[in-house]
């Protein structure tokens, strides 16, 4: 533990020196880009996870430690429904997994210089305030907050931010994959025309065996309303839990969804349990002979897999391309789409 905390301190110090060094020596003279605006997520990757929500027991694409895997398997989706957990902030990195827009703006010092870029707007997380004035990261004993403490530099037209002092939070939505309060995140934010690419690199000494890397694309939405952070109010979401004092969880080895991906997608169990080796091409070769694709979606129960989903009646879906997306929208069962001749 001491070594880990020491490691965090060194990393925070390193980030501080990194920011200072860049600020003094290598700050681009003419490379910054205007990032201000509201950005909608382009949901063309990890759609199920970012929209209707992950399948339970789906840790694919994650490099988890044994401890991280064990902790994730204790999770039940009833857990965030407890009064005291409903308004907990989410991880600063979880915006990469959320289906809502976020906003970027800048803040100025008294001389009109940009002192910080801020990523914010989602009511479930704190702002990420990226200090641009070369200030060092604070002591390891400083308060940890939802958005962490972030310093940034411009590398060409990419804003690179290093986040420390984050709170313990789930890395992905709805499956219980944990991050500790010693987690750090690096963000690379690049705007090209109306597209914004955000690459996040998350490290965690307890729960990740290697950095968890995600790259997402967002689209500038100048007509979007400003994304505000509304006050979070609690409600009794699960009446049967009322006044019981229970904390929903599964005991080790008792999670009934531990083999959900085996049952549903014919994957070997280890493939879905977040081992780092599953992230690399060699693993596909290991799967050869062990995996056969499940039956076609049209032959499976509604909700198994969906085509392009008509999002809550909004434009974007083609006629008849609706399906049961697990409750994200009231779309009804997928059913058999009529062919051209049947219509």
């Amino acid at each position, binding site marked *: 533990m001491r070594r880990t905390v020491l490691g965090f301190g060194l990393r925070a110090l390193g*980030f501080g020196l*990194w920011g200072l060094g860049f600020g003094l*020596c*290598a700050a*681009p*003279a*003419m*490379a*910054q*880009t205007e990032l201000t605006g509201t950005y909608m997520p*382009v949901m*063309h*990757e*990890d*759609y199920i996870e970012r929209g209707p929500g992950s399948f339970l027991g789906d840790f*694919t*694409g*994650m490099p988890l430690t044994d401890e991280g895997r064990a902790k994730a398997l204790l999770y039940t989706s009833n857990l965030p429904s407890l009064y005291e957990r409903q308004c907990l902030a989410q991880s600063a990195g979880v915006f990469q997994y959320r289906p809502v827009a976020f906003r970027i703006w800048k803040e100025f010092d008294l001389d009109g210089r940009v002192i910080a870029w801020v990523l914010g707007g989602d009511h479930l997380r704190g702002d990420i305030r990226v200090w641009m004035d070369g200030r060092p990261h604070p002591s390891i004993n400083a308060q940890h907050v939802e958005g962490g403490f972030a310093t940034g530099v*411009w*590398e*060409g037209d*990419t804003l690179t931010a290093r986040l420390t002092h984050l709170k313990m939070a789930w890395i992905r939505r709805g499956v219980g994959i944990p991050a500790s309060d010693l987690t750090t995140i*690096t963000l*690379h934010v*690049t705007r*090209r*025309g109306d*597209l914004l*690419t955000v*690459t996040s*690199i998350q490290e965690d000494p307890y729960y990740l065996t290697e*950095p*968890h*890397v*995600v*790259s997402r*694309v967002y*689209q500038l939405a100048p007509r979007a309303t400003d994304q505000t952070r509304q006050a979070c109010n609690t409600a009794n979401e699960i009446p049967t839990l009322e006044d019981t004092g229970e904390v929903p969880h599964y005991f080790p080895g008792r999670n009934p969804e531990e083999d959900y991906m085996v049952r549903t*997608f014919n*994957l070997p169990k280890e493939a879905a349990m977040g081992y780092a080796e*599953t*992230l*690399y*091409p*060699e693993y*596909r*070769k290991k*799967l050869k002979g062990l*995996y056969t*694709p499940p*039956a076609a979606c*049209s032959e499976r129960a509604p909700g198994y*897999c969906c085509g*392009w989903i008509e999002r809550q009646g909004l434009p*974007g879906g*083609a006629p*008849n*391309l609706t399906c049961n997306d697990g409750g994200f929208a009231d779309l009804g069962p997928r059913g058999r*789409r009529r062919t*051209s001749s049947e219509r």
Partner: protein
Amino acid sequence: MIGRLNHRGLTPLLLALLVSAEVNAQGRGGAAPPSSPRQAAPTDLTGQWVAVISEDWRWRMVTPSKGDFPSIPLNLKGQELAEAWDPAKDEAAGEQCKAYGAPGVMRGPTRLRVSWLDDTTLKLETDYGMQTRLFRFGAGSPPAGPRTWQGVSRAEWVMTGTGRDGRRFGYMKSVTTNLRPGYLRKNGVPYSANAVFTELWDVHVEPNGTRYLVITNTVDDPTYLQSPWITALHFTAERDNSTWDPTPCDARF
């Protein structure tokens, strides 16, 4: 607007601007301006890169079920074709590489080897499906010929600034056309011969020296898509070249 200006393939103009910037930066009597796209490269894309499959794992690492195409904005025609996918038919037609065309193979569990073929041509090889794509810089006419899995890729450097230490920043933009119709996803999600595949190539270097290649992709295909399919891919640099493992196209797995 900035992006649109950069989309014109005006490599000579960019080079001229680059030369101008270099001269200004170096003052009188500085080093000679870059004479070729290879010399002008603001970022180093060469080397061996490995895909990190941390997104869309179920659709990229294994072949998903027929009809499993969430995330891809298929139109009705595209959906009908995807639902008619028959790998046996592809094999019989000698088209087992349909999922290894440029827009498909880049999302696969692959390694990339990037090297300069000459001063104006960047070569990309994949071990997954053993494909080769050439990125040609310059404003010359594309080579005539039949459509291929990898198509014809035009490339340009887009300069984004210069640091006080003289370090130049920029990225590669490539536009690939003349594609033979193929699959965006291994389970027969189609793109047509009209598809235009645009990629923006960025390299991020972490303080510990780890290098990430992040490619922002747009597939425009009005034939089968309701809207452009926009994604970002990431690879990490490898020092150990022994992991390179060429495997031929496979229509099923």
